[in-house]
């Protein structure tokens, strides 16, 4: 598809005007100097996001404009946010929560979520957001691995998803209910009452750049979810990547549509917009094309960061709802979560007069690593070029490590040179899995990609069996484990099936134990069983029965073979196949 060229005036007003010049001049020390820090080298994300702006006279500026489900608007200034997060930090302290303790959050996009995130960081405790569409098992697994001490949630989510098993988690001492209205369920506390009794002043913890700040869970092919550890120093990258890759300017109205339960919704739905002192829009409701266009118009959104699934849904709806809408304030549109298909980039250009700028990063990288920029020509379908300060390469396996591939358009592992501030510092308590990510001086992303002769990167696929649905990684093992708990299930394999709307949908192949026969009712029973445990975001959408699943000699189910057959692709090397599918 044809390259979309940028005009000179677009480059002139962009933060990153000339890619090569900016890249050559960039240093991480320079990026650090954009922030305050504390005397003696300390750094705290919440100070950079809130208090620093209040001190410099921006207290009355709207930091968060929250749009409730009923479309009422509620503004929170930087001064409001400072006071509320101070009260939250004081409340945690009054409960004996200390630096390094883990504070988990299970909430929809309500103001308390943002207060909890930043208040936790002020105390020096570790914030871990969870997606509210998770079912009880993903929640319990994450809180168990992360040794949650505190959970901030709503009464409904607590009763439905947590109350049944909370006693099983030894570390979990406090559950704070955001909407208790003076009547918190037994064994929980009323957060509003607790915060009301504390001071609006708090001295932010003098955290160091390498102190743990955030815990974000992600999924691998095997084993339990992995808790990627991020530190306060990551804010240097959150801040500067927002300027470069999202082109955030101080007067911007910015809308990141991602939920903070996923890393995008935290790095760019909380931290980066606030450190850049823009006004950010938070919409409580789920995707709705007409509503989204109303918000873009009414709030005069300048910069919009969304995801391929949403863009494809908008394409499907068509231009109808846009008729008569004035979106002239829109200046820059970006997309992340999975590769954005070229048609969607071009559709954006035709419909909004500007392309969607795809970018690439992961939970582990903490911030945007490769991007299309406001000033740079866009090749539809490409993820763009590495950010200033980031060295990316395509590597191939050698006998004992990897080496970089020099030739253009050769498929290899997308890899990064370690050392940027928002790189994960560990998978919590999983040193071996963490160490496996680093080979021959490269961080190996697990994504396959190519680089063209102009230095643009192109996504090819995943190098493992992880499923990517609506931009979210789903570990097949987590889904398989939940299905295996059902008394009728003998064996199960879970794969992703390509879907033009959400990228991939989760499909489970199930072989039944003797005495059970495939039926529509049993299919629905298994689906319900999986949904109850995993929630709609993780549970399979489709279940198919098989008499036997293809296995290797060692009994390992060959997901790859199931997938190849499902898609009508070549079966590849099946020399290890011992027991075939029936």
């Amino acid at each position: 598809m044809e390259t979309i060229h940028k005009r000179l005036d677009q480059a002139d007003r962009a933060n990153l005007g000339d890619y090569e010049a900016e890249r050559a001049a960039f240093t991480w020390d320079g990026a650090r100097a954009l922030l305050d820090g504390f005397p003696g080298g300390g750094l705290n994300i919440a100070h950079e996001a809130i208090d620093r702006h209040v001190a410099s006279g921006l207290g009355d500026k709207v930091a968060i404009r929250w749009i409730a489900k009923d479309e009422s608007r509620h503004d929170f200034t930087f001064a409001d946010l400072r006071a509320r997060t101070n009260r939250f930090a004081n409340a945690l302290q009054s409960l004996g929560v200390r630096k390094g303790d883990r504070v988990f959050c299970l909430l929809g996009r309500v103001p308390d979520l943002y207060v909890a995130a930043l208040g936790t960081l002020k105390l020096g405790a570790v914030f871990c957001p969870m997606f509210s569409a998770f079912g009880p098992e993903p929640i319990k697994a994450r809180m168990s691995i992360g040794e949650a001490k505190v959970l901030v949630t709503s009464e409904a989510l607590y009763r439905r998803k947590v109350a049944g098993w909370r006693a099983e988690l030894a570390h979990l001492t406090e559950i704070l209910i955001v909407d208790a209205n003076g009547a918190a369920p037994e064994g929980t506390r009323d957060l509003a009452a607790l915060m009301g009794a504390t001071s609006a002043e708090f001295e932010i913890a003098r955290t160091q750049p390498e102190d743990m700040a955030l815990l974000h869970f992600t999924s691998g092919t095997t084993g339990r979810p992995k808790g990627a550890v991020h530190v306060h120093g990551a804010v240097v990258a959150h801040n500067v990547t927002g300027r470069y890759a999202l082109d955030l300017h101080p007067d911007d109205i910015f809308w990141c549509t991602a939920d903070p339960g996923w890393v995008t919704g935290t790095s760019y739905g909380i931290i980066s917009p606030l450190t850049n002192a823009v006004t950010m829009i938070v919409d409580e409701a789920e995707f709705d094309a007409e509503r989204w266009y109303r918000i873009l118009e009414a709030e005069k959104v300048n910069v919009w960061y969304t995801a391929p699934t949403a863009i494809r849904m908008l394409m499907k709806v068509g231009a109808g709802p846009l008729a008569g809408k004035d979106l002239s304030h829109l200046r820059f549109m970006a997309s992340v979560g999975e590769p954005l298909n070229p048609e969607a980039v071009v559709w954006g250009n035709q419909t909004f007069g500007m392309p969607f700028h795809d970018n690439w990063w992961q939970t582990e990288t903490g911030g945007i690593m490769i991007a299309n920029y406001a000033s740079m020509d866009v090749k539809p379908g490409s993820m763009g070029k590495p950010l200033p300060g980031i060295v990316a390469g395509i590597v191939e396996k050698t006998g004992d490590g990897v080496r970089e591939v020099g030739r253009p358009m050769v498929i290899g592992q997308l890899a990064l040179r370690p050392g940027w501030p928002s790189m994960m510092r560990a998978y919590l308590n999983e040193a071996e899995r963490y160490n496996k990510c680093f080979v021959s001086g490269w961080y190996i992303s697990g994504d396959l990609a190519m680089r063209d002769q102009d230095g643009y990167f192109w996504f090819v696929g995943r190098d493992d069996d992880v499923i990517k649905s609506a931009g979210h990684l789903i570990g097949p093992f987590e889904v398989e484990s939940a299905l295996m708990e059902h008394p009728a299930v003998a064996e199960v394999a879970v794969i992703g099936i390509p879907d033009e709307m959400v990228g991939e949908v989760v499909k489970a192949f199930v072989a039944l134990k003797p005495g059970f026969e495939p039926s529509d009712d049993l299919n629905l029973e298994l689906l319900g069983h999986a949904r109850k445990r995993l929630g709609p975001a993780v549970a399979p959408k489709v279940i198919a029965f098989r008499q036997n699943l293809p296995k290797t000699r060692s009994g390992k189910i060959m997901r790859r073979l199931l997938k190849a057959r499902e898609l009508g692709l070549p079966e590849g090397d099946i020399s290890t196949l011992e027991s075939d599918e029936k």
Partner: protein
Amino acid sequence: MNTQQAETALAEELRRIAPDVDVAGIDRDGDLREEFDIDSMDFLNLVTALNKRLGIPIPEPDYSRFDTYGGAVAYLIEKAP
């Protein structure tokens, strides 16, 4: 189509998507997506299934009529041939 038929169609299609939720126990005026714990994709699948089953075109601007279970039943009765 009468109320009973609309109810049956909606309940059966919802059961195919969220078999873990008992229709009898939900709040008919509550947020449909929350009551049945369904995501955006489930919601699209529901609308598509109802369209196929009942032959009623359900254009995107009408999706807000499905905000609640009660609202969806009323919509189906209104639009049925």
